[in-house]
């Protein structure tokens, strides 16, 4: 009997399984942040419950931290309260916290892998939908709501209905592996399968075009699984995976033995059956830019904004959605993508703020200056990323080009801190969601790769970044 990678992980974490019922699944890693946890801890207090496994739980502060000078007091009192609440909750319940001034602070999905907390074959949850990022290590990693955060804290388990499996097979070789990034691959996939194409399924990304990617590039792919409606996406671990996690701060001491066990086991068996399958040839993929208000509304850089009818293809709901999106985005159909001018650039988020993202963006920026009509900022994904980037001198390259160089956090991906767009501002963003108001009420977001964001910061409009490299 053959099994997919997901089924292997699932089967090895079942605590209780009864016919026609959801299964009780054990959770190996629980990551906690300030926004989705206060009500969960309150629930524990009211019911006099403890955290079952503080040793499998870790917290950080990322969503609403300021990215400016952290020696200054926080201006936003409600954010400050939320942060203090997490500090108190971690203290009261014995949970390790990487707080605002800790060198391990950073976006939760960036620090998990960086610290060796993320492990192949494990189950990982966090009260955040982009937990799917960590599926890049061959883990079943998924976002949960606050009630499930409380449930995990109290029991280290969750009741889950077994998701179906969905194979995403990426074949071929990118024509320009600097300018066509893993962000462009995942945006192209979402464009094809839709924002709910993966609902009820765990995606497994497979094929030579996936193996070819670095761990950080794979994380970008798995990160956006949720934008295709999938709670989780995963990639079978290989030598790159094992190398990445070796010698990290919290990598287990018996790591080499663990790797021996994972090799030849943590992969979908030959001929294993997926409930759904989709194939994409990456050779045909161009740099991508989103034009609408969901991550399936995406165009090739050489393309034009489609008419609602072209986009909707006889589906009245989609046609109406596209009309509404174009009104919100203040864009006309048939506009060439390269003619769209921008006001802001945000290089950051759990999708694209790891070291390689910053290295690639810096290659574009080096020796150039941000267009005078554009405000651009770089927000590293974690303090560790920031430090490594500074060791390479990337901060200087960005600052010399008039980019702002900030402290780490979620920042303008969702604008819970002061980093927001003003109404009507148009932003090239390396984040994951172009929803209405996501980066600030009335703000207009275009999702792009780090190199596209960097090049458009210089040019003041979107450009075919293949011609820059």
């Amino acid at each position, binding site marked *: 009997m053959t099994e997919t990678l997901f089924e292997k992980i699932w089967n090895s974490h079942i605590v209780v399984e009864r016919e026609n019922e959801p299964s009780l699944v054990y959770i190996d*890693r629980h990551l906690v942040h300030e926004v989705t946890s206060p009500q969960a801890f309150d629930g524990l207090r009211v019911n006099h419950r403890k955290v079952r496994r503080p040793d499998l739980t870790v917290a950080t502060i990322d969503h609403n931290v300021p990215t400016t000078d952290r020696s200054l007091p926080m201006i936003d009192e409600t*954010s400050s309260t939320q942060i203090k609440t997490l500090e108190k909750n971690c203290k009261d319940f014995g949970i390790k916290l990487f707080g605002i001034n800790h060198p391990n602070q950073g976006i939760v999905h960036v620090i998990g892998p960086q610290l060796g907390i993320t492990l192949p074959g494990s189950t990982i949850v966090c009260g955040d939908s982009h937990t799917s990022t960590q599926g890049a290590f061959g883990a079943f990693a998924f976002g949960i709501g606050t009630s499930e955060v409380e*449930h995990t804290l109290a029991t*280290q388990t969750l009741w889950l209905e077994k998701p179906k499996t969905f194979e995403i097979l990426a074949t071929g070789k990118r024509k320009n592996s600097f300018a066509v990034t893993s962000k462009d691959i995942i945006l192209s996939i979402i464009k094809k399968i839709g924002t709910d194409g993966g609902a009820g399924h765990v995606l497994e990304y497979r094929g030579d075009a996936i193996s070819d990617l670095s761990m950080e590039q794979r994380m970008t792919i798995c990160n956006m699984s949720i934008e295709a409606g999938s709670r989780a996406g995963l990639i079978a671990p290989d030598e790159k995976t094992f190398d990445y996690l070796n010698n990290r701060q919290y990598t287990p001491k018996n790591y080499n033995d663990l790797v021996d066990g994972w090799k030849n086991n943590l992969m979908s068996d030959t001929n294993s059956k997926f409930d759904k399958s989709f194939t994409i040839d990456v050779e045909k993929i161009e740099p991508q830019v989103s034009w609408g208000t969901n991550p399936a509304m995406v165009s090739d850089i050489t393309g034009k904004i489609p008419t609602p009818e072209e986009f909707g293809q006889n589906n009245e*709901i989609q046609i109406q959605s596209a009309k509404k999106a174009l009104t919100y985005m203040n864009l006309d159909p048939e506009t060439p993508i390269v003619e769209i001018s921008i006001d802001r650039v945000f290089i950051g988020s759990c999708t694209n703020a790891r070291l390689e993202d910053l290295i690639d963006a810096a290659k574009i920026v080096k020796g150039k200056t941000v267009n005078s009509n554009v405000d651009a900022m770089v927000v590293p994904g974690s303090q560790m990323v920031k430090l490594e980037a500074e060791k390479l001198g990337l901060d200087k390259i960005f600052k010399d080009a008039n980019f702002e160089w900030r402290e780490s956090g979620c920042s303008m991906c969702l604008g819970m801190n002061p980093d927001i767009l003003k109404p009507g501002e148009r932003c090239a963003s390396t984040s994951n*969601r172009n929803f209405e108001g996501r980066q600030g009420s009335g703000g207009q977001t275009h999702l792009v790769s780090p190199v596209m964001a960097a090049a458009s910061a210089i040019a003041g409009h979107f450009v075919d970044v293949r011609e820059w490299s």
Partner: protein
Amino acid sequence: MKPFSKIISIITPFDKANVDTDQIIPKQFLKLITKTGFGKFLFYDWRFDHEGQPKNDFILNNSNYKDSQILITNENFGCGSSREHAVWALKDFGFNVIISPSFADIFYSNCFKNGVLPIILNIDEIKKLLKIKDKIELDLNSQKIIYGDEFINFEIDSHRKIRLLEGLDDIDLTLKENEQIGNFEKNSSIMPIFE
């Protein structure tokens, strides 16, 4: 959690697809540390203009629907962020039932944890319901939506149904499996982060 009882209410038609949780409750309202008080911020950017005045053409500002407990919407409702605040806001505003052709996975799961019933119906059934201006009756026990002399059956997982009807606490139920959880921990090679 309060047991889910029979609902008699008019329907609020909300004909939008891919409604994401950023719209349901924008991020500036996620900083509260309680579960209550989110209703006044529901769909904030769609309900209010930049001066904070209600927009007349937005359906939730129409007083005819003031007491409605049932929201009917379009496909992929609740996509995006996992924020349970979206369900807290809908519930606090007065919605106990959301009907849609499809829901995003995390939102769907979050509903049940808060006594909100998400019902999946096909487009034709939804179109039928959208024509009804009078109150309809929603009976979870018999899994029926009753309007006039007619009714529509809906599907729901039997365990979720029982938990809603009895208002059971998930954690209480799980703690009954404590022995199994302990056995699992003994027999598996769980690796602590902090040794």
